[in-house]
């Protein structure tokens, strides 16, 4: 039954796309590890890291799309779930440093020694074990989403009001994590990681594996998302998006549908954030900044909201552009990003994938007419 559940939403295109994601996740790291330096097909280490980062962004975009594209909830706070997952992973990685820190304290991370902490704050306990940290990566963002969503959806906070609430949430977290009293490194955040599960985070092999895992996770998320939106639940979900009150009059408990995708999506974002942190080597409060969440929404908009392939494409395209432009013409990047927001909403409301579909159906019509 589970297999059927997972298979039901997969169109042929999507199956191909999942294979493509896996191919990237396998070939990019392998080319880096196996090919000799100097080979034209060898991916340099920084590129492997970059691809790994993009894959995490793509997972975040997919999470945003699940609530925005399929349920009509414009969340401006998903970076918060991403960052919370990242912090959970960061806490695990901090505890792994052990005596190798600047102060050599076996228990306390460097910043705590520096801030005169005498003992580990209570919420740091357990994070020395990966098998404690791993469920936390899912639980912490999910519980926040559950709390916020339960209140908000039950009180029928919708539309821009919900957007503003989610933005206020991430803003409040931003302020909170900046405080040294929070016990999470203040504005420097958590960094100087040494190893993950016993392997050095700096080594090429670890990076290659992390890149592969990021692709695998994205592929799994695609399959799960496809199953959810392809099910009868998914039909109800898009119906909620299109005519919420009509669904109520049909007897659906709309808030439960919303809550489920919201929590699922937060968990996905948390996992993406957890994979992101060891690859970039740092997590700090700026990840909570409202701008990050809105950028994630832009990736979805560029790729095509309400499609599963779109957000992945959008995340790759926009972030590739960002990497390239901030290097080549840094002052142009914000102009380009801003313009992209405007252009996409005005001219491309269905994104790149929507444009492609439109093009396809038009050419199909032309063929049909030619055949007739």
């Amino acid at each position, binding site marked *: 039954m589970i297999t059927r559940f997972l298979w039901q939403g997969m169109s042929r295109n999507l199956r191909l796309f999942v294979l493509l994601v896996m191919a990237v996740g396998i070939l990019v790291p392998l080319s880096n590890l196996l090919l000799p330096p100097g080979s034209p097909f060898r991916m340099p280490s920084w590129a492997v890291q970059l691809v790994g980062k993009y894959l995490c962004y793509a997972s975040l975009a997919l999470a945003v799309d699940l609530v925005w594209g399929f349920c009509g909830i*414009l969340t401006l706070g998903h970076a918060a779930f991403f960052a919370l997952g990242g912090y959970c992973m960061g806490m695990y990685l901090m505890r792994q440093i052990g005596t190798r820190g600047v102060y050599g304290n076996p228990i306390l991370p460097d910043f705590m020694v520096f801030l005169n902490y005498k003992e580990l704050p209570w919420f740091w306990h357990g994070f020395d074990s990966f098998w404690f940290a791993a469920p936390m990566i899912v639980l912490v963002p999910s519980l926040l989403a559950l709390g*916020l969503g339960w*209140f*908000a959806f*039950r*009180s*029928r*906070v919708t*539309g*821009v*009001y919900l*957007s*503003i*609430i989610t*933005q*206020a*949430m991430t*803003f*409040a977290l931003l*302020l*909170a994590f*900046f*405080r040294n009293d929070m016990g999470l490194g203040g504005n420097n955040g958590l960094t100087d990681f040494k190893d993950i599960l016993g392997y050095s985070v700096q080594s090429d092999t670890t990076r290659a594996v992390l890149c592969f895992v990021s692709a695998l996770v994205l592929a799994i998320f695609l399959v799960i998302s496809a199953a959810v939106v392809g099910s009868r639940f998914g039909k109800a979900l898009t119906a909620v998006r299109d005519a919420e009150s009509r669904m109520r009059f049909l007897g659906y408990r709309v808030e439960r549908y919303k809550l489920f995708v919201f929590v699922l999506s937060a968990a996905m974002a948390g996992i993406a954030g957890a994979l992101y942190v060891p690859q970039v080597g740092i997590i700090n409060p700026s990840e909570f900044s*409202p701008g990050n969440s*809105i950028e994630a*929404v*832009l990736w979805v*908009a560029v790729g095509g909201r309400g499609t599963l392939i779109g957000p992945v494409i959008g995340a790759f395209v926009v972030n590739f552009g960002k990497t390239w432009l901030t290097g080549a013409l840094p*002052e142009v990047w*914000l*102009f380009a*990003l*801003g*313009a*992209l*927001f*405007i252009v*996409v*909403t*005005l001219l491309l*409301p269905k994104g790149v994938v929507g444009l492609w579909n439109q093009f396809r159906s038009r050419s199909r019509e032309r063929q049909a007419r030619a055949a007739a």
Partner: protein
Amino acid sequence: MLRLRPFSVLLSVLASLALAGAALAADLATLVGNLTSGGLSDREAAITALAASGEERAAPILEALAAGQLYVRTSDKVAVIGKADGNKLALTEAVSGKPAGSAVEADLDRVRVNNRLRGTIEAAVGSLTLMSPNSNVRLNAADALFKRRDATALPALDQALAAEKDARVKRAMSEARAAIVLAAADTPPAQKLAAIALLKDRGDRDSLGILNTVASSSDGEVKAAAAAAATSIDQALAAWQMAQNVWYGISLGSVLLLAAIGLAITFGTMGVINMAHGEMVMIGAYTTFVVQEIIRTSAPHLFDVSLVIALPLAFVVSGAIGILIERTIIRFLYGRPLDTLLATWGLSLVLQQAVRSIFGSSNREVGAPSWMSGAFQLGQLNITYGRLWIVVFALIVFASLILLLRKTPLGLYMRAVTQNRPMAAAVGIRTPRVDALTFGLGSGIAGLAGVALSQIDNVSPNLGQGYIIDSFMVVVFGGVGNLFGTLIGALTLGVVNKFLEPYAGAVLGKILVLVFIILFIQRRPRGLFALKGRSVE
């Protein structure tokens, strides 16, 4: 012997004061001559005589003497005051107060003093300033005495008190007297009680300190009276502190009001979330900066009216940009509020980067005109003129906006469109034009807010970002489509924020306010003063 010393000093000062009339006749130069010649034993009489002269120069000469800066120049035997200036001493003539070149210490004879004489000098100077013809000097002397609680100055103080005409100074002097009386151990209880009553009326932190000391170091009736007075001051001070917090809250609230009110109009009328609203504020602030730059370079005498010139300009500049935005972007997105939100966010990035490219990313200096600097004291309240003007300005803007909405055709159209857009269109109101003007108006008001905020915040490309979330909170909290809701919302949030700060700190206070609003929206999704009815959906 030591215990007697102050007493003898007092006697001599008293004697000299009694002889003041005679002494006045003496020539200042002679008095100074007496001071510098002769031995240490003669010096005391010379000091009292000089002090009694009431001459303006007496105080600086005596102070110099106490500090060991009074010299006699070896070459011409003229008394000079020497202040260290590098290796040498910069000299002024003691009698005339004119500069007298410089000299090395070897060419000078220091007029020596001992500790006993220093005591004499100190008391003499205190009484001198208490008798000064300038009422501000007397007031300062009294205040200084209040803080020093120097029992030796008491006779001089009594003397000055008796002669004092100025009610304000007189009051300060009697308070100083009360403080001294309370500090002295041998004062009779009746006097102490009177002094306690005086300090209770004064009611500030210093009085509280004195009273607490008295309450802990005495007993019986005095102890009870002091403790009671201290409690009452404590309560009064707490009330003042609360009033001060309310004022800070109102001040913050007026800033929030200025930032949010334009947003309230566009959100209320068009249901449009304008994420670039903060940038309109920022543009207003930069307009102020440009106006001040032009005034600085070409018409510095106009600096005091620079803000008055900037106001209409900021309104026009931000308003025009607003109308441009509405015509080119927002009008294509009506009915898609979430898309509008994204597009205007993009716009805010573009505007920020544009300003950064033109003016640079560092903070720009916007000066305060003279009428906006300084502060005044209202009871125990400390109020700065800058903040006061911003509160007044915010209320003026608010009132004008209400008038505009109630009394002008544009206001009528805007209200019509807010309440029922299709019906407004059906009766012939050109809703697109109303939309453009409304958006322009909202943006223009943001520009006005920018002029005000340039006075209290850093003028940088990020200025607007700091206000956008707070502004949304105000609008959502107050209720959309209701300007009075925005007013109440802004003031409430301002005051709540400032009340939380002392307990939770500024950042945590802000977080608590955000959480409070998030929870509040769950209770009342449409805000404090929501429109009800079928048209809302």
